[in-house]
């Protein structure tokens, strides 16, 4: 890739996309075509109508990706919508991430809220549940879901952005993995080698191969568990 070929939008602007080294949007920017770059930084608001391929994507504001997103690292410190699928090695979400289709990653970590319309598939899935987290299916090797805490900050954010889904729970149809630990999770099926269910879970069925542990907390209910 050519270096030194940067795209910067400061204020209000738009671009038709293309190949760049560094792309920075400070303010409000529209990119109407496909974008390929080494680093994409969004401080403000950006709408990207094409597919995006970037080594590093950093969103510290709000971004609206209409296509698919591929890359090495994606860091969300604000809010991000993706209309297609996400295929990024490392996803770090510290805000609100919404993906309409599948999300493939090697490592997916979230300290905030997210929605994945399809399958969330990653080797290592680390979720601290601060706001509502939702995925149709979750699959991977190590899956760790913990309650994030902080009811005060949630009330504060809720008062700033009414309508945000802030109830701290992970909702999904199925979770499948090798080592699974869950807190604050509502799921129909959980299947794995080693399954540990912590507080705040509502699970219909647990299927496990090696070991199974369930927290005795009254906030947790598991309808059925069986060894397979």
């Amino acid at each position, binding site marked *: 890739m050519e270096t030194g070929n940067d795209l910067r939008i400061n204020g209000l602007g738009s671009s038709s996309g293309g190949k760049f080294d560094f792309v920075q949007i400070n303010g409000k920017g529209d990119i109407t075509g496909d974008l390929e770059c080494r680093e994409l930084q969004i401080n403000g608001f950006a709408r990207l109508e094409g597919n995006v391929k970037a080594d590093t994507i950093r969103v510290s504001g709000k971004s609206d990706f209409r296509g698919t997103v591929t890359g090495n690292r994606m860091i969300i410190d604000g809010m991000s919508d993706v209309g297609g699928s996400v295929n990024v090695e490392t996803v770090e979400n510290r805000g609100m991430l919404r993906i309409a289709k599948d999300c*493939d990653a*090697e490592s997916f970590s979230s300290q905030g809220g997210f929605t994945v319309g399809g399958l969330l*598939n*990653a*080797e290592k899935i680390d979720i601290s549940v601060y706001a509502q987290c939702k995925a149709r299916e979750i*699959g*991977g*090797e*190590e899956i760790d879901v913990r309650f994030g805490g902080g009811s005060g900050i949630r009330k504060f954010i809720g008062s700033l952005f009414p309508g945000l889904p802030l109830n701290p729970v992970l909702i999904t*149809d*199925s979770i*499948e*993995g*090798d080592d699974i630990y869950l807190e604050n999770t509502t799921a*129909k*099926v959980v*299947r*794995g*080698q080693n399954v540990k269910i912590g507080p705040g879970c509502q699970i219909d*069925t647990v*299927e496990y191969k090696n070991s199974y542990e369930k927290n005795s907390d009254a906030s947790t209910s598991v309808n059925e568990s069986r060894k*397979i």
Partner: protein
Amino acid sequence: MENDLISKKELLDLTGISYGQLYRWKRKLLIPEEWFIRKSTFTGQETFFPRDKILSRIEKIKNMKDDASLDELADMLSPNPADVNISRETLKSSGIISGAATAIFDELAGEQDTFSFTSILHLYLLDKLLQSGEISGDEGKVLLKTLDENFSGLEGKNCDVIVIRKLGASSCILVSAPNQIFFDTNTKVAGRLNVASSIEELKAKLANAGIG
């Protein structure tokens, strides 16, 4: 379409792989997206796979994963053409493609010193159909022409190549798979090959011969 399906649970039981492995292979595109078939059952949504395809694929991955990295495996199994050019002599001495097929190819395209993967693939498809006696040399030419003119439009997609005959005249069709096609009763399907699985075979053969 495919009646013989296997559930995910049964698959893991039968092959002894874990969920983690299955999801990793899916991510690495070792198992094609279209094999994951979601169906509703009385326990909710379940994922099923075409039984024969997935079992042979997993066997293959298990056998090869000690020698090659997952990324190399993905290259080998993907329907995308490999990036290789092979000289005429190497190809000849490898014995992957017969002289008869090469002769037909030369007649159409002229003698080339090196072959790209796409040309070798066309040769391989032609050779397979010729060897099995399903098509004649002349039909082979039609096949090569069809592939030559239309293959780029289907690159990276799974497709079937079909040679049909009706009342002594033959024709060649390239269709993206999976699709059902119906012919009238006078039409006879002389030969049919799946391109993606042929690419897979060819890549394995090239790798065995130490080229590509």
